[in-house]
């Protein structure tokens, strides 16, 4: 037997709900279709011949549709709801027909008329069974169990606000006349609805106002989860599942609510079954919104986490740059001395060499000059103190301080040499001769000095090259002492005022990423310099040892600074811990970086420190396994982020 369709089309969800409840009695034998607009009706592709009744809002678009339908199926009764625009009604009457115009609320009389129309329709289709006739005959009480089909209609077309307004307005209507149980309430500000972790027996619909949901945080604080506004439901989850409330909810403003306790809810759903559909939808919608909300939050958190990771990587990079910047400044200073000496040297050579080439000297002087030059080029110069001492001794022979000093520098000041070279000359000739030889000496000495200075620059540059370099992917066996020495070269300038005590034991080559390790030595030495504020002693020692049956090496950097209080020793490895002042190295995340590098090398860094007045020190011990084939490289992850 055909099941006929009752079609209701209205853009106002409340009106639809009203229609639904009015026509609910017919639900047992008809499919009640509720549509928000004609499109949706068309999309439903109902068989037009199966439509037993159309109740529609009258608009220009439904007008067309109704006319079309009426032309093809003139037997279908067409009911319209009081149109807002009168002109449309004559159109419909002319183009098709109107069987009944309904007010918003369908009165019993009108319901009776509807039944009659349906009877008429069914009779035409020969579908009016006895059963239907009884139903439509009119007096039987409304069915309490309308077909489930009517319950899950097209609420998808309702917006969130519309759906909740539908439910809430209906609830208000239901309780308008009869609110013995005080379901509709007005809460003042700071009224507690649910309490986190406690059982909740009620469900609140917020008609007006704001309710804040919050959760307690691990550090005994509270964190707002969200603020529910009019149209939302509070307590839904705990109410339905019986689980303890997930959040605490409290009113932020004066709030109008409908509060339903379990038994009230049950009674309500029994007596107003048409509410079950919209209510279920509302509940699902609510949960769905919350779920979507938390998924969006999670996604946001993920991306935040990613950007935090990137920021961290960048911070590490910035720290590297900051240390590097200060090192470079130090190195610039450090380069300055040899560069100055070289420049002075070449400048002097530029005048001395042509001068010497121009001299017409006797062979003896020239030979002595060449010997002096060679000698000056090869020897380490005498200390200034020794020169002074010997100059003083030589003054009787050479007559004055200037000549004596020159003779000493050339090491021609001994009585034997004096007799050999100058005994036969008069003082004036001797003076001439020594001054001439001094030119040779200067040339030799400056050549040597340029050589020494250039080598120093080369060493510095070599150290720098490592800083600028990139570790190869595979861990390599490296000489730890070499790395430390290169780091010390970089710091030479800063370390001038220090007593640097190196106690190197013979240790094996260590499988590692040497440039990363260089960062550790840099940080530890920079920290030692900062801690001692420019003056003090720094001890660097290395040793080898066995731990857990594996070969390890240990590098210790100890300074005689004021020490770190016991209470702070754990904190120094934390990312944001710093005692750095202006003019110090880096940003104060050096130790964190060190720890990360050491962790990747499967090693350990420990700190021991003492703040006693007599014996204050801080020592960092870095333990690294000798054999260490698999070391994760930081560069990988970081470069990836940077390239994005």
């Amino acid at each position, binding site marked *: 037997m055909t099941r006929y369709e009752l079609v209701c089309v209205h853009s106002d969800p409340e009106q639809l709900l009203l229609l639904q409840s009015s026509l609910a009695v017919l639900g047992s034998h008809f499919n009640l279709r509720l549509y928000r607009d004609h499109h949706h009706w068309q999309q439903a592709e109902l068989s037009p011949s199966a439509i037993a009744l159309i109740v529609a809002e009258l608009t220009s678009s439904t007008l067309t549709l109704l006319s079309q339908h009426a032309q093809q199926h003139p037997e279908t009764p067409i009911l319209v709801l009081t149109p807002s625009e009168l002109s449309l009604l004559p159109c419909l009457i002319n183009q098709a027909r109107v069987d009944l115009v309904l007010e918003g609320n369908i009165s019993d009389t009108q319901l009776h008329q509807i039944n009659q129309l349906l009877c008429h329709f069914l009779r035409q289709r020969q579908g009016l069974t006895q059963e239907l006739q009884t139903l439509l005959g009119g007096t039987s009480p409304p069915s309490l169990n309308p077909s489930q089909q009517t319950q899950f209609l097209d609420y998808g077309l309702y917006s969130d606000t519309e759906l909740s307004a539908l439910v809430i307005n209906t609830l208000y209507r239901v309780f308008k006349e009869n609110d013995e149980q005080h379901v509709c309430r007005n809460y003042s500000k700071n009224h507690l609805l649910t309490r986190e972790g406690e059982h909740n027996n009620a469900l609140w619909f917020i008609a007006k106002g704001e309710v804040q949901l919050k959760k307690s945080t691990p550090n005994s604080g509270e964190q707002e989860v969200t603020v529910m506004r009019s149209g939302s439901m509070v307590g839904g989850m705990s109410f339905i599942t019986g689980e303890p409330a997930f959040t605490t909810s409290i009113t932020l403003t004066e709030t109008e609510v409908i509060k339903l306790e379990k038994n009230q809810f049950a009674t309500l759903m029994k007596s107003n079954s048409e509410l079950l559909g919209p209510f279920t939808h509302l509940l699902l919608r609510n949960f769905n919104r919350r779920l979507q909300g938390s998924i969006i939050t999670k996604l946001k958190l993920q991306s935040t986490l990613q950007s935090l990771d990137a920021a961290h990587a960048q911070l590490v990079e910035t720290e590297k740059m900051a240390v590097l910047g200060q090192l470079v400044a130090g190195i610039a200073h450090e380069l300055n001395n040899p560069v100055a000496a070289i420049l002075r040297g070449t400048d002097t050579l530029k005048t001395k060499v042509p001068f010497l080439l121009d001299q017409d000297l006797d062979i003896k002087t020239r030979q002595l000059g060449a010997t002096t030059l060679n000698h000056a080029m090869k020897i380490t110069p005498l200390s*200034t103190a020794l020169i002074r001492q010997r100059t003083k001794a030589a003054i009787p022979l050479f007559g004055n301080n200037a000549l004596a000093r020159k003779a000493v520098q050339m090491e021609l000041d001994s009585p034997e040499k004096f007799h050999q070279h100058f005994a036969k000359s008069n003082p004036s000739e001797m003076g001439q001769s020594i001054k001439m030889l001094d030119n040779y000496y200067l040339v030799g000495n400056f050549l040597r000095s340029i050589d020494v200075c250039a080598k120093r620059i080369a060493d510095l540059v070599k150290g720098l090259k490592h800083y600028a370099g990139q570790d190869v992917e595979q861990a390599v066996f490296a000489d730890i002492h070499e790395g430390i020495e290169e780091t010390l070269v970089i710091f030479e300038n800063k370390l001038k005022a220090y007593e640097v005590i190196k106690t190197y034991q013979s240790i094996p080559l260590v499988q590692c990423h040497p440039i990363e390790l260089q960062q550790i030595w840099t940080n530890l030495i920079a920290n030692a310099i900062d801690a001692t504020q420019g003056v003090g002693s720094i001890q660097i020692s290395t040793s080898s040892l066995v731990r857990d049956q594996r070969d390890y090496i240990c590098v210790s950097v100890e300074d005689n600074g004021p020490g770190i209080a016991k209470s702070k020793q754990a904190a120094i490895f934390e990312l944001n811990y710093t005692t750095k002042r202006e003019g110090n190295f880096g940003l104060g995340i050096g130790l964190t970086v060190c720890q990360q590098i050491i962790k990747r090398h499967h090693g350990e860094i420990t700190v021991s420190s003492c703040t006693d007045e007599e014996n204050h020190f801080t020592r960092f011990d870095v333990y690294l396994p000798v054999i260490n084939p698999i070391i994760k490289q930081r560069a990988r992850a970081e470069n990836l982020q940077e390239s994005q």
Partner: protein
Amino acid sequence: MNKYIILCVDDEREVLDSVLADLDGLSELFDLEAAQSVDEARDFLTESQQNQQTLALILCDHLMPGTKGVDFLIELQQQGEYKAAKKVLLTGQAGLEDTVEALNRGGLDFYIAKPWQGDELFAHTQELLTDYILDNEKDLMRYARLLDAEKIFSAIHARRQSISND
């Protein structure tokens, strides 16, 4: 042995040798002395005092192991016998703070940045020594040859006039 001393202090031997070479032209009338640390310079000064020699000019590096150059200049400034000596900082490493300190408390007369030009170093030293000699020496004539002759002659002239005016 000359009456006056020029003392150069720098821990870098190569730098020290360069300075000495640049100032060699003054060695006839001034004992050109070098020290590789402040400690050595102190010892030398004590010794030179016993020899009745006077410090006319000190040319000092700043960043050295042990006592820093600026601190040494301050130390000298506070001792009466070295207060008059011309004080020159030859450095690439003294920051603004140190330099201000040297000026305010060390009686700094001149600051030469490394690297320097030999002839400029010589010229500045010559000027400073001229001023020193004019303030501290009676026998100006013998210094005219090596120092700023014009300045010295006009000073000699002025002195004669003031004597004849008396």
